[in-house]
């Protein structure tokens, strides 16, 4: 009886801890700090379970992380947060709730080519993250026009990412066996990726919100956009990806002076214990 009451009490206290022990993350899109509850073991398990996801796009991992961010945010509608905000939140959750270090493992080629003595190296994510934050990188929306067509670009929100990834997953076959099938999948994925960055398209006086269009309609619209406009969107997306490179990759400066660049994982393995 005593034990049972104690366990119940502890569980109640653990629940209460959610608000007591929180993590502050600076959210660039809101230009303010937002509090997040700590990850629970159950949430960590959910994340780690997504490692069985074999889809190319890590859909299960993405949707799980997005759900957990929504569950843990205190006084914040996470649907409106951007994918840049999300990366910062994920890094913070990893550092505060799992470990401020990360261990990179080198494959045989990397070891051979660089004469490495160790098969792995542990780095401080905290230092890496802080040096990135000091740069105070932020992204602004942009508008591109070509003739009578104007498009608004912004970083995709978590809601957009959720919606489009789910649709993308529905619309591509689980297994691609032919070359033509592969080309088709790459095309669809490319269009989906571009679409994420386009908020709306204005042609003459007609404004279309791309994020709410059905998947196939969206593909048709994008396919018919002028190449000049598409190129601008691609550049916008590339610009974003280049800017966050300093965060999502780690540059090992070797004894020889050469660099060995490793990506931080964008799947459940980032949260490995």
């Amino acid at each position: 009886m005593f034990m049972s009451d104690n366990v119940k009490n502890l569980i109640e206290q653990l629940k209460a801890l959610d608000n007591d022990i929180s993590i502050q993350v600076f959210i660039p899109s809101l230009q303010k700090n937002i509090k997040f509850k700590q990850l629970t073991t159950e949430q960590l398990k959910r994340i780690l379970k997504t490692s069985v996801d074999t889809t190319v796009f890590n859909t299960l991992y993405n949707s799980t992380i997005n759900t957990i961010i929504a569950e843990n945010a205190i006084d914040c509608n996470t649907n409106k947060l951007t994918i840049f905000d999300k990366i910062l939140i994920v890094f913070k959750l990893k550092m505060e709730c799992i470990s401020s270090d990360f261990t990179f493992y080198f494959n045989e080629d990397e070891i051979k080519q660089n004469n490495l003595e160790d098969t792995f190296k542990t780095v401080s994510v905290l230092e890496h993250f802080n040096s990135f934050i000091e740069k105070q990188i932020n992204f602004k929306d942009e508008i591109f026009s070509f003739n009578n067509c104007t498009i608004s670009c912004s970083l995709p929100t978590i809601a957009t990412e959720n919606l489009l990834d789910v649709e993308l997953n529905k619309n591509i076959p689980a297994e691609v066996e032919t070359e033509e099938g592969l080309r088709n999948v790459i095309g669809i994925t490319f269009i989906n990726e571009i679409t994420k960055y386009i908020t709306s398209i204005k042609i003459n006086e007609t404004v279309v919100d791309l994020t709410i269009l059905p998947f196939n309609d969206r593909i048709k619209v994008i396919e018919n956009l002028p190449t000049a406009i598409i190129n601008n969107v691609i550049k916008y997306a590339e610009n974003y990806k280049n800017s966050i490179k300093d965060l999502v990759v780690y540059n090992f400066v070797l004894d020889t002076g050469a660099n060995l660049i490793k990506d931080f994982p964008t799947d459940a393995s980032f949260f490995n214990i």
Partner: protein
Amino acid sequence: MSNFLNEIKINDKVVLCKELKVKHYKIILKCLLGNDVILCLNNINSILLDITNLTNIEINKLNFIDYFLLLLEIRRNNISNTILAETIDDKSTKITINISKIINIIQNIKYQHLLVPDNVDSFYIYYKLPTIREISYIETDSLETVYGLFLKEIITNNIKIPFSNLKKNTLNELFVYFPAKLTTHLVKRAENIISIFNDINLLSYIPGLKDKHLMFNFNINNLYLLIKLLFGDQLLSLYSNIFELSKQINMSPEYIENCTPGEYGIFVKKLEALNNDNNTQPSIDIQPNVNTKSTNSLNPYTNNEVPPINSTPFM
């Protein structure tokens, strides 16, 4: 038959121990005939209750190191200091296991520093080594039961949660609510303890036996193998010898059963010598239980039931 008392030093106390008797030994050999670990532990605990000054609660709380120190000392004091064993491989190497050396190895495990309490935020964590019964309950597919194994108690905000008696379901439920940071910390601490014990090979003192292992870790199969090695005689020989001692020199079975296995071995040898002097063939069943054929194998039971000498790491 005497009321001699031994003092056995385990990690935090001295246990007074009466001699193990043949009747106890018979019980142990009976349980070791099968592979029911729990049945075996129940019976051994009942014998420990009978021959030591420990209470039932104290016996059940002994961590597995203390438990084995007790069994090893009882084996050494009442049967012999050596076990003749045979490796189960192509070469079938015969080895003599010295119990004193094994006791030294186990006594030299400085585990206290592995159990130093620490904290994660407001959670103050106290660690322990598991009991052998807890090890027997481990389900390796349930990480909570593995990592919970080393938790003595957690104190947070004046609430104390003792982990020793928590059921698996309760343990699982608690872990769900634990902050991931706490669980991550517990996993790391537990893995550290596990990795240190995975390096403990009780045969490491024997030169030239590098590829043979008798691991002293959290794998219940390895620990059960150790118990089988310690008490590895043939039950059938024991019965036969009691019968012959009663028949040929009128020793009462009650008297024999109240001797130590060591004393009993002396009587068997004496009878054997007597039979040889009288130029009489000894009964084919007479097999002294000490340092003879019956203890020459790692598996004293049947040829088909040979446990490997190479035991395995845990996890």
